[in-house]
């Protein structure tokens, strides 16, 4: 499946449409979809030999400064209205459920520390994380399960989703505000102390490896 993307163009039986046409096609597909569309899917939907990635570069430029923008969301693309025109859209505004302080903090911790285990979240917050908080974030599709940590107990980790990036207008989790500064300050390291500190979570934080895996496997699949 995935090898169709980088198929050399010389394999093509027919010539790919001119780039201007390809740009139109990408434009039509992105306009038609409320959800971001991956480059792979664009290529799959466009005629053989098309290069959606290149067409996207042109299209993005074309919409600069316009009422709608071409935005990158993870490895996918979408068209979104310009944020400065939000005031025109009261009618379209969706009432989002008010998130609790615990949920907001948990979300921030997951986004900056991902992949992160529940015990690690609890260690950072110094308080247990209720199942409801995690469930709410999972239900909103802002977080999902990542790989299991290869430590005793093989705890599950949490990572943020494409929907999270889309919702907050982020190209990738690397673009989170202040990420570089936090890392430079060592505040994204997992720094367990071998004894003494009271543990709020499952108590197996000590067992977690000390390596700073944060942000290294943002996009697992």
């Amino acid at each position, binding site marked *: 499946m995935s090898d169709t993307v980088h198929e050399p163009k010389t394999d093509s039986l027919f010539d790919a449409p001119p780039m201007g046409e390809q740009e139109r096609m990408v434009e039509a597909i992105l*306009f*038609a*979809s*409320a*959800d971001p569309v991956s480059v792979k899917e664009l290529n799959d939907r466009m005629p053989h030999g098309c290069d959606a990635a290149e067409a996207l570069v042109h299209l993005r430029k074309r919409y600069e400064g316009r009422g709608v923008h071409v935005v990158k969301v993870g490895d996918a693309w*979408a*068209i*979104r*209205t*310009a*944020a400065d025109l*939000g005031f025109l*859209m009261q009618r*379209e*505004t*969706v009432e*989002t459920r008010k998130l609790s*302080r*615990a949920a*907001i*903090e948990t*979300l*921030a*911790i997951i*986004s*900056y520390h991902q992949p992160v285990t529940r015990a690690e979240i609890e*260690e*950072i*917050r*110094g*308080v*247990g994380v209720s199942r409801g908080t995690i469930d709410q974030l999972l239900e909103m599709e802002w977080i999902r399960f990542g790989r299991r940590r290869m430590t005793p107990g093989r705890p599950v980790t949490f990572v943020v989703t494409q929907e999270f990036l*889309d*919702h*907050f*207008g*982020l190209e990738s989790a690397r673009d*989170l*505000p*202040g990420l570089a500064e*936090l890392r430079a*300050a060592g*505040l994204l390291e997992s*720094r367990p*102390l*071998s*004894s*003494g*500190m*009271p543990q*709020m979570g499952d108590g197996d934080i000590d067992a977690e490896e000390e390596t700073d895996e944060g942000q290294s496997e943002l996009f697992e699949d």
Partner: protein
Amino acid sequence: MTETDSPELPLTVDDRLAAEAFVIDVDGYEGPLDMLLSMARTQKVDLRKISILDLSRQYLAFVEEAKTLRLELAADYLVMAAWLAFLKSRLLLPPDPTEEGPSGEDLAAHLAFQLERLQAMRDCAAKLMARDQKGRDFFVRGIPEHMERVRKVKYTATLIDLMQGYARIRTKDEFRPFVMDREKVFTMEMALDRMRGMIGFSGQWTDIISYLPEGWDDDPVKWRSATAATFAASLELVKEGKAEIQQSETFAPIQLRRREIPRE
């Protein structure tokens, strides 16, 4: 909320207001670390230069006060209090070289790190929520066009299919490659099929030989096969409760008749 209805607590109004404030505050904190963090903020210094000793004293004082006010404190707060008391003693007493584990300073530094990290995460959460959000500041396509799935079926056949199909028609028979010639075999299924249609009319005892199909009684091989199949099928019908079977003596004709359905 009258003021004189709790004689066992000789407290002033101020005391009680303060006590209520504590309850509310504890509820408002997201755990002991959060409470420590807001206490630390009152020191109004860089979190890295915070005095953990002062903070411990402040926290322990709060817990003491909560006790005198008979407030129920969550276990987390008490565990933290015990740990801070331990930390305080470590920080105040000269280090014991025989003791294992991290020093008081290490523990204090770690607590400071935790507070700083929690504060950082709080700031991040605020920055995150202050971003332009989908459905509030920017919007998705209002009339998305759903992708239509067009299912196209392509039919195919091979030359062998075609020839087998033709052969089937020309022989007016099921095309059966690699099947043994069973021309002279009358199967029990065939016999059963035949007898099922006939048994309903057989109210009298009838020799099962009369059930043999036409044209199967001249060739001995075919006769044997047909007789065996008919006999087996007869037993099957009896077993199903559709017929009765009898034989007066050894080698006498075997007779079959319909079984009357008993009325219930």
